[in-house]
């Protein structure tokens, strides 16, 4: 691997500013890496010609005002990018070319970055292993037969393999944090409402959030700052000031109180995960933080509640994919037949499962028993967190119940796949910010991440705490390049 792509995003940004290298040199390297790495199947659409043009353009104009001046970035194929195919990993959108740009990606381009390509993901963001994409599975750089996690699997894989200096994904039940944990990278899900959802293919509206995925915490703060902000076109976007996450980043966390929720110590928890958690506690103690035991009593009900709310909202959000306005259309003798064939052909199995569950739990006679009940459980889970944040400033848990598993291991049983999200889902239900930072390895040398959960709009605190962990964990992405 050549040198530039091994650098962090922050170092590349500074390198371009200091004229140590040009945007074109940076872009060419990432394009080279990407071309050599097609075995990973991280990309759905490559935008290398356009990126090269943009880089040349940048080097001519030399506008260094942006936070991401001259940086090529590949993004999850859930963000609508103007005139660039956007598929959401689905056959039903396999030929969809938006005439508009999502707010979040537009924010990146306003900061001087440009599009390198669209990255693979689970279909409509539904999955935890990137095995449901119409465009094929993605491999984890840590091993050909390993999943990179999901749904932002292509993003995590491309990031870890250094095919892009940084990337953005979306997180509805853990889709940024879990793949970050599986690939030894940093992934942050911001507070609900921090980043705009306008122009992002919707999965579950009350849970979806876009977030940064980066090689280290410093990069994460930078990218979060570039992405965030109020958008009047999104009625769930919050009009609150974007902190200077980057310049306020510090590992001075002395005196901060960290909660350790006992309910996250689940039955049959692998010892390695428990040990990792203990290391995390030690790192933070070493940094001067105060550790407190807390209780989040409704934790075990989070996953079942999530698998009511998310499919219900998805079943409605995906009703627009009917073959009339865009995307795949099948033949049909009449309108209904056309709808039924289009959606049957266009959606994969997991998406069908979730649409049907969602339709069922909302259907006549069942609304109170399921959807309304789930929203009540959600209130209880959120209240658990609210109460805890009276006593602590952040909460530390493992990110995932295991390291990356093998492709095909869990695809027979939907429920066993769902259990991957056990530590991440409660956070989406409560709308809180959370970050996964790589902190150790399992006995097979596969990466494991720790999760920090913060108060609403207090991304700064969890970034700072992650930095403290990062500095002490001395984690290295030490896989061999088996693919190029």
């Amino acid at each position, binding site marked *: 691997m050549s040198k530039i792509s091994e650098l962090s995003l922050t170092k590349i940004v500074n390198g371009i500013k200091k004229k140590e290298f040009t945007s074109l040199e940076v872009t060419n390297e990432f394009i080279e890496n990407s071309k050599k790495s097609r075995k990973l199947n991280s990309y759905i659409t490559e935008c290398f010609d356009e990126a090269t043009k943009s880089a040349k353009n940048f080097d001519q104009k030399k506008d260094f005002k942006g936070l991401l001046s001259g940086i090529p970035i590949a993004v999850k194929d859930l963000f*609508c990018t103007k005139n660039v195919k*956007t598929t*959401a990993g689905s056959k039903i*959108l396999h030929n*969809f070319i*938006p*005439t*508009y740009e*999502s707010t979040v990606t537009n924010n990146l381009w306003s900061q001087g970055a440009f599009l390198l390509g669209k990255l693979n993901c689970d279909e409509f963001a539904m999955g935890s292993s990137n095995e449901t994409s119409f465009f094929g599975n993605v491999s984890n750089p840590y091993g050909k037969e390993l999943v990179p996690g999901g749904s932002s699997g292509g993003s995590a894989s491309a990031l870890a393999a250094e095919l892009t200096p940084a990337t953005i994904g979306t997180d509805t039940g853990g889709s940024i944090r879990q793949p970050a944990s599986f690939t030894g990278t940093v992934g942050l899900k911001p507070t609900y409402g921090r980043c705009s*959802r*306008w*122009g*992002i*293919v*919707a999965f*579950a*509206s*009350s849970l979806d959030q876009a977030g940064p995925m980066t090689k280290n915490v410093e990069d994460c703060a930078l990218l979060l700052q570039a992405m965030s902000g109020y958008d*009047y*076109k*999104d*009625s*769930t976007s919050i009009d609150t000031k974007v902190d200077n996450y980057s310049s306020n980043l510090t590992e001075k966390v002395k005196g901060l109180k960290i909660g350790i929720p006992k309910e996250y110590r689940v039955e049959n928890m692998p010892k390695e995960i428990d040990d990792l958690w203990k290391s995390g506690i030690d790192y933070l103690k070493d940094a001067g933080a105060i550790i407190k035991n807390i209780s989040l009593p409704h934790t075990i009900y989070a996953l079942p509640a999530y698998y009511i709310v998310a499919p*219900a*909202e998805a*079943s*409605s959000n*995906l*009703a*627009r994919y*009917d073959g*009339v*306005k*865009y995307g795949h259309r099948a033949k049909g003798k009449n*309108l*209904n037949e056309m*709808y039924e064939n289009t959606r049957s052909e266009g959606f994969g199995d997991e998406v069908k499962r979730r649409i049907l569950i969602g*339709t069922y739990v*909302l*259907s*006549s006679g069942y*609304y109170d028993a399921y*959807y309304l009940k789930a929203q009540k459980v959600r209130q209880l889970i959120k209240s658990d967190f609210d109460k805890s944040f009276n006593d602590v400033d952040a909460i530390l848990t493992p990110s995932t119940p295991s390291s990356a598993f093998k492709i095909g291991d869990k695809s027979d049983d939907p429920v066993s796949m769902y259990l991957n999200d056990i530590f991440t889902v409660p956070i989406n239900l409560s709308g809180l910010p959370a970050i996964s930072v790589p902190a150790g390895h399992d006995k097979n040398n596969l990466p494991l991440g720790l999760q920090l959960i913060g108060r609403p709009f207090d991304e700064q605190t969890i970034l700072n705490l992650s930095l403290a962990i990062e500095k002490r964990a001395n984690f290295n992405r030490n896989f061999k390049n088996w693919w190029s």
Partner: protein
Amino acid sequence: MNERKFDYFINGEKDKWEVIIGLEVHAQVSSKSKLFSSSSTQFGAKPNTQVSLVDSAFPGMLPVINQFCIEQSIKTGLGLKAKINLNSVFDRKNYFYADLPQGYQISQYQNPIVGEGEVVLDMPYGTKRVGIERLHLEQDAGKSIHDMDPENSFVDLNRSGVALMEIVSKPDLRSPEEVNSYVKKLRSIMRYIGTCDGNMQEGSLRADVNVSVRKVGDKKFGTRCEIKNVNSIRFMEMAIAFEAKRQVELLESGKKIDQETRLYDTKKNTTRSMRSKEDAHDYRYFPDPDLLPLNLDKSLIDKLKKELPELPDQKKERFIKEHNLSPYEANILVSEKEISEYYEKVIKESDKKLATNWIIVELFAVLNKKNLPISESPISAKNLSSLIKMISSGKISGKIAKVVFEKMQNGDRDPNQIVEKEGLIQQSDPKELEQIILDVLSKNQDKVTQYKSGKVKLFGYFVGEAMKISKGKANPKLVNDILKTKLK
């Protein structure tokens, strides 16, 4: 005065039945842009030119609510004397159709913006109070055109997303006549407030009509059928009449009524079933997660209340008191805001009684003949007022005034000018009239003798002759008075 009793019943073969009707009126909000997007709402634009990415449900699109539409629905609620709910929720109503690009309609289900209210009708048999159940805001759908191609339908989304107020009445209506009155009253109230133009030809106002029947004396409601999307008052009346008869016939033959949705066939004047039971929609309502709950401040409601114009019922009471009108007259003059404004302009400087008569009888005849609303009246309020002033002052007679009125219609001419130009000023000089009358009497000595010996009907003949000689300009009252004295 109550001229008659309520008498709309269906006389079946076995029993006497009454008809129970409830209406769900869909009224398009008068606003420039749509409820959740900034596209125009103007009627008649070229297909799909008033459509945004949000209206056509592209991936990643999100709704943003129009403040003005919220205020319009609050004002309408206030006009219906209804409770305004400070907290309401927008829900998704999920179903599939070609004119529904999202696959759901954003509506309000359990927590509408307006609650219970009332509309008061003046029926010939007395006052009828019709309860309003609720009013909520929702998106209109686009249009599917089925008759341009044998195998395909064409979809135009211009209307998709326009704000609708759905006004649900309680099942208080009992006849097509009451429905007619109710829809007209609703329409009038909304036009007064300016929240809906009520233009049924353009689709601004349409209704789903719920009809059931029960034997007179029964307390329980029968099974109802919903007749969907009726877009004229006349069709509503006819559809109700047909449907009520259909239901009575079914029930009297021992059969049951299937609760179903029906369509009114305007050509055959029948209703027919629209959907079978299996295809019945399950709308799977749930709160729209792209929107937050709507929480209104009482200060907004108070502000909007102050902005309301005088409403028809209030205006009617005031007209009766201040202008000494009969309830019948007042009803007509307040039925449209524009009519009441016209009337009040006319009576600013002219006699109220004459004004009432001239507007209700003469002007309305012209407007009806030419099919014009009062806002396009060929005679302005100012000029009508001048005409009436001339009658009051005796400058012209009532008869001549009608002639002048005809001529005024040609370009809203000033009646004073017409009268001057054509020499139509009434002859009111007693000396002149005396001369004319003496002339008439002298030329008809024999008739004078007959009159004096008892043929009193000849009085009219003498009046007629005097009018003839004066070319109709003689002041009839003076002619009468002078003639009386001369014939003593």
